[in-house]
């Protein structure tokens, strides 16, 4: 594990550099364990790293880094299976035809492949309610759009690389839009204010409306 300072009040603990469920499980377990410490203000799991915001009056980068290394060598507790969300998708996204053509598949086949796996929520972040889901089947792998859209509507279901996700709010975005859902991802009047949590599982199914 490598620990890097992020200024004087945060650090980045890197567990690896691969998109990998086991690494992500360790990152989430480490973030959960760190969150219980009094000197930690917030610990956020990334794909394969944990960003730790700490109180510099209670600890130092070196002391917290050593504690993190001790925690990380312990066997992580058996990961509980995350909650399973079933999300209806109307596969009529603006980019569906183009995606199908580039992948040499039919639009229907793209929908079938996309709705087949049970995805993992690797990371919640970027904008409120956004979750990085994956891994996407290799047959659907495409780089991001060259020119991002300035506005993607809320509820758009999108793919890029080995990842998929749902735009929770109207925001700019560079992913390929293959469908839409009516499920609300960002729930501002709940705490926590988003449907998905890191470690949850997501299954898409084709809906007609």
């Amino acid at each position: 594990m490598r620990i890097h300072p992020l200024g004087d009040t945060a650090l980045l603990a890197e567990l690896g550099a691969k998109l990998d469920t086991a690494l992500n499980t360790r990152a989430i377990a480490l973030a959960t364990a760190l969150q219980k410490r009094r000197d930690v203000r917030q610990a956020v799991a990334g794909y394969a790293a944990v960003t730790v915001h700490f109180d510099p009056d209670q600890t130092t980068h070196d002391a917290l880094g050593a504690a993190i290394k001790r925690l990380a060598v312990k066997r992580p507790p058996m990961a509980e299976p995350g909650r399973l969300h079933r999300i209806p998708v109307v596969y009529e996204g603006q980019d569906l035809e183009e995606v199908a053509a580039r992948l040499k598949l039919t639009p229907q086949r793209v929908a079938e492949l996309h709705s087949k796996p049970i995805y993992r929520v690797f990371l919640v972040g970027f904008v409120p309610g956004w979750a990085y889901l994956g891994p996407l089947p290799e047959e659907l792998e495409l780089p991001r759009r060259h020119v991002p859209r300035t506005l993607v509507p809320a509820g758009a279901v999108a793919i890029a690389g080995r990842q998929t996700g749902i735009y929770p709010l109207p925001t700019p975005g560079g992913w390929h839009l293959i469908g839409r859902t009516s499920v609300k991802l960002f729930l501002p009047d709940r705490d926590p204010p988003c449907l998905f949590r890191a470690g949850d599982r997501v299954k898409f199914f084709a809906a007609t409306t």
Partner: protein
Amino acid sequence: MTVVLRVVEPGLFTTVQDLGRPQAISSGVPPGGAMDRFAHRAANLLVGNAEVDATLECTLTGPHLVAEHSCLVAITGADFEARVNGQVAPTWTGIFLGQGDRLTFGARRSGGRAYIAVAGGVEADRWLGSVSTNLMAARGGLHGRNLKAGDRISAAREASRPVVSGHHLPVRLRPNYANHTLFAIAGPHLKRLDPDGRTLLFGGAFKVSREADRMGYRLDGPKLATSGDELLSFGLTAGAVQVPHGGQPILLMADHQTAGGYAVVATVVSASMPVAAQLVPGDELRFAETTLERARHMRASLAVALDTLRNPSR
């Protein structure tokens, strides 16, 4: 609670801010809070509040406010030529407003963000543990938006202890806002810059572009070329200097995106963030590499300055 101030003119962009909602980062919600935490804290302490109480953050121009009830206020941060009933008002000082007194602002003389604290704290909507305004979610602050004409501002509570005007923070105890050197710690991905890039980062002059807001500042100046594979997204922090593929660095500020996958080549230390918060488009800045030890000393000297306001019995 008692309405203390009425908004005649809101100023360009005035929002309610406190120290933010760090625990919401895990939901993708920006931490928010005052951009210049030093000025925010000092304003609160000058009127007898707790540091976490809400203040008004005024961007580039100040509002025009009328006191509906007498109250103690303090104005800190940027210098927008504060006046009470047309007379120049002292800043970084607790000042008493009588009923009907008018607090106005003139031209921007220096800095980008002024803070107005009111004894008792500004009453506002609480969301996820903070009253900081989040425009994207339309939550916190005054109905989740910036101030507009006709708004009424109440004190969150009666001033908890006897407060007196005239407390003051001398210039020597304030951040040196005029020196636009931001001290920064080398970031986790600094090695993705070639040696020339590293020299440019810690030595070149950058300029705050027009794309600068509470989320972050895009910086004009030398382009920084990064190399290496795509990074997996990870959690970000205010002060991080991100380099996207185009090579134009972005300094993340209070309402930053909570996660991203661009190289973080440096992170501005907490003691330099008040200076960063006061930069406006067109301002030149430089990054100076520093150590965690130096950062601790800088943080301690700002804490000592605030302590003088906590115990103002001298």
